[in-house]
């Protein structure tokens, strides 16, 4: 029992000694003025001042220390060093009991390859957490960050930036209301008014929340993300891709991909789409649209044509559409350019569209093919043709059908014009549905302008 009490006493004594040592400050300087001002013991150390407390060293031109409060005002070329952290300012304060340093003038924190500048700052030498305010600039060899307020946790290299945050590197720029960045794990979380701009492919993504995982090369954007990509076409004109959804995910590896999920709206030139799952592979210029369980079938519009199917694959070549493949439950409905209620229809297991210089040149339909095709003779309507076959090929030149080929037990029936006229709505395929919820390009253009202003 006595032994235990002795050990505890020794431990407590050691702790007290450790605590008292921790508070001890040693100061070297050219001269010291001791003063008693309003009952406060003041020490003014002037010239080549070096202050040390534990692992903290401060050098400056002049230090005015309040003995009772154990605090000091540091003036002139102030340099504070602790481990790898170096803080520089022209005027600052040091609170010895709390081991906190503050500055209301331009302050520069340096830690290995990272640099932090601000109009004012506070650094807690115990917790090793810096709080910087006013025109904060943080940069390392890769990234530059601007904000109005920044908290930097040195040990875990965590950055919390708020107010007008802008992070940029050689290829991208992120703007947000606030941002949390973990330098070691290269994980970034952004909140509020997110804007991501990629110089590499001229893509801008807006959203409300961002999770950027550089180690795993993945970025997630939440809160109605909206993507725009301005592309220069081969004829030097511009075209803009718009994608809006409830969630987006960008994977940056050998095959950079953008995945848009839930209520996806796409506009690109004459192509429009409404769906719930889109993959945009920028490298291979492929857009994949897939039907999700319990969700409506994907829809694609091209000029006056509506295409639906479980899976739609769009292949681009130098930003121009090369092929469109519609797999499972495919149906293509084209409105006549003159007659509002006349729709050429074609359904099958799969439809393959081939384009040349952006113009449709061939349509192939495979499996359980059904079609309704309106006929014209010298621009005058001439009934319609209902057909069924196993395989269907349509050849088009300058937007006019030049040849139609049916394969595998084809059956066709002709409906004369007198039976068709005024009765067009009766001639529809079993899976015929006309969708009206097209994405509106003007709304997207307006949205882009407004979001880009901020």
């Amino acid at each position, binding site marked *: 029992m006595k032994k235990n009490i002795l050990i505890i006493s020794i431990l407590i004594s050691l702790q007290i000694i450790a605590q008292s040592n921790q*508070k001890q*400050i040693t100061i*070297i*300087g050219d*001269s*010291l003025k*001791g003063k008693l001002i309003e009952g406060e013991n003041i020490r003014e*150390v002037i010239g080549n001042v070096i202050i040390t407390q534990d692992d903290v060293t401060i050098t400056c031109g002049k230090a005015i220390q309040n003995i009772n409060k154990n605090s000091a005002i540091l003036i002139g070329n102030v340099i504070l060093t602790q481990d790898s952290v170096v803080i520089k300012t022209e005027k600052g304060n040091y609170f010895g009991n709390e081991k906190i340093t503050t500055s209301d003038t331009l302050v520069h924190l340096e830690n290995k390859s990272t640099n932090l500048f601000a109009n004012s700052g506070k650094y807690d030498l115990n917790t090793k957490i810096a709080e910087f305010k006013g025109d904060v600039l943080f940069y390392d060899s890769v990234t530059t960050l601007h904000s109005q307020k920044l908290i930097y946790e040195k040990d875990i290299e965590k950055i919390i930036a708020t107010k007008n945050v802008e992070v940029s590197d050689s290829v991208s720029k992120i703007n947000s209301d606030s941002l949390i960045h973990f330098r070691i794990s290269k994980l970034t979380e952004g909140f509020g008014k997110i804007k991501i701009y990629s110089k590499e492919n001229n893509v801008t993504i807006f959203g409300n929340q961002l999770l950027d995982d550089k180690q795993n090369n993945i970025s997630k954007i939440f809160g109605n993300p909206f993507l725009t990509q301005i592309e220069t076409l081969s004829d030097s004109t511009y075209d803009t891709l718009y994608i809006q959804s409830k969630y987006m995910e960008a994977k940056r590896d050998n095959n950079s991909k953008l995945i848009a999920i839930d209520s996806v709206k796409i506009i690109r030139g004459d192509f429009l789409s409404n769906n719930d799952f889109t993959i945009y592979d920028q490298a291979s210029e492929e857009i994949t649209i897939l039907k999700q369980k319990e969700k409506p079938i994907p829809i694609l519009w091209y000029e006056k044509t509506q295409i639906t199917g479980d899976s739609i694959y769009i292949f681009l070549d130098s930003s121009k559409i090369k092929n469109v493949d519609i797999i499972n439950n495919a149906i293509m409905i084209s409105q006549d350019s003159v007659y509002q209620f006349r729709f050429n229809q074609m359904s099958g297991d799969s439809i393959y569209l081939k384009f040349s210089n952006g113009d449709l040149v061939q349509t192939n339909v495979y499996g359980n093919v059904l079609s309704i095709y309106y006929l014209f003779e010298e621009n005058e309507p001439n009934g319609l043709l209902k057909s069924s076959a196993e395989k269907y090929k349509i050849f088009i030149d300058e937007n006019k059908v030049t040849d139609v080929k049916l394969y595998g037990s084809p059956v066709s029936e002709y409906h004369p014009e007198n039976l068709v006229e005024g009765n067009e709505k009766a001639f529809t395929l079993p899976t015929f549905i006309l969708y009206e919820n097209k994405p509106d390009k003007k709304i997207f253009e307006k949205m882009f302008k407004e979001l880009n202003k901020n």
Partner: protein
Amino acid sequence: MKKIFLIILLQFIFIFCGEEKLKPKIDNSINSKEIPDQESRNAKITFTENGKLKAVLFSDIIKVLGNKNEKYLEGVTVDFYNEAEQKNSRLTSKKGRVDDLTQDMYAIENVVAKSDSGVTLTTEELIWRNKTKKIMTDKFVKIVSDKEIIEGYGFESDQSLRNYTIFDITYITNVEQ
């Protein structure tokens, strides 16, 4: 009577002829100019200004050298008093010197000055200027209080040791003693 005188005379002659002649010893180390005019023991000198008590000096020995206008002291203690004539600091040293013309005091060897505010100053030489009421030295100085240790070379202070300047300092603060 003549016989008696003769016997005495013979005895003197006998005595002086039987021994070597002795000369009185001369101490050459003593400079006649250094020989004090006065010497006091357990002395006390009071310094006043406009009738107000400023300092009281106690000394084991005081030697007054009139021709040099100086007093040499051994075993010195000086008590300093503030405006309210309250004792606010004490200085002790092994030796000391007082300039009679300026009334400046020099504390020499093992100088220790303690203020009532808990500040202790140690040095090898300290001068108290009567005119300015300031304490100063150009020697190594160490000041110790309950919260700090200050070491430096050269020192200037008011006599209460509250307002002072030290040069080339090493300063340890927040010392838990």
